[in-house]
């Protein structure tokens, strides 16, 4: 006699389960903290560690909201949003920090490119945002005058 109906469904369920586990695994394995990018001392090096050597262009399609003056560099509110389609990643940098990369967000299929975060700024300098869409990087930046540095 061949395999029973119950056996058949068990086998199929097992196969389906392994498939779904396998489809999740690669993402989990590669979702690792990018220590090279976070430890880079220069903004350009951090960008290269994150995104390789993709072309970068300045873009007004990324909206960056920061205060003109931050009294306390330990808590500088930053908001980023964009209507640009196809964004897969958004990263926030503080140019004058010891390590400029502050945070990097995956824009997953269900994530909206609309984020806010409080960051530390060592001193007066530019907050730079880079968004990746397709094989291009889009950059926008704004100067924040910091009264008291927030990295000490």
């Amino acid at each position, binding site marked *: 006699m061949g395999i029973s109906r119950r056996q058949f469904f068990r086998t199929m369920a097992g196969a389906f389960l392994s498939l779904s586990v396998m489809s999740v695994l690669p*993402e989990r394995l590669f*979702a690792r*903290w*990018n220590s090279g990018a*976070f430890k880079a001392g220069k903004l350009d090096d951090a960008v290269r560690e994150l995104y390789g050597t993709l072309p970068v262009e300045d873009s007004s399609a990324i909206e960056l909201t920061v205060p003109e003056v931050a009294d306390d560099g*330990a*808590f*500088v509110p930053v908001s980023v949003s964009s209507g640009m389609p196809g964004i897969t990643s958004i990263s926030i940098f*503080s140019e004058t*920090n*010891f*390590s*400029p*990369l*502050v*945070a*990097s*967000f*995956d824009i*997953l299929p*269900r*994530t*909206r490119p*609309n*984020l*806010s*975060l*409080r*960051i*530390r700024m060592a001193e007066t300098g530019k907050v730079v945002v880079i968004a990746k869409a397709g094989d291009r990087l889009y950059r926008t930046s704004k100067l924040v005058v910091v009264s008291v540095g*927030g*990295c*000490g």
Partner: protein
Amino acid sequence: MKVKAVAANEVVSVKLLIQHPMETGRRKDQGGNIVPAHFITEVTASHKGQDVFHAEFGPGVSRDPYFAFQFDGAKAGDMLTISWVDNKGSSEKSDFPIVAM
């Protein structure tokens, strides 16, 4: 971890506050000794088994990280799972209900 997740038209707005020292590894204590780096490295949010948010943080994120994001495709009454891990391997994972606006 304090989380507020509000749904409006299948778009969920999430605000989070995670209590964490976010030590940069460059600060000195009163005795002049360097306080070792201690900061959150990754935050993930998932809804019904699918990741809807993933961020990597460095020590440039402020103490007690407070941040906000939005995602699609969930409604009030659903649960949102949020987890974080730090550079010393500490972590936290909790479920939060999504509420109506």
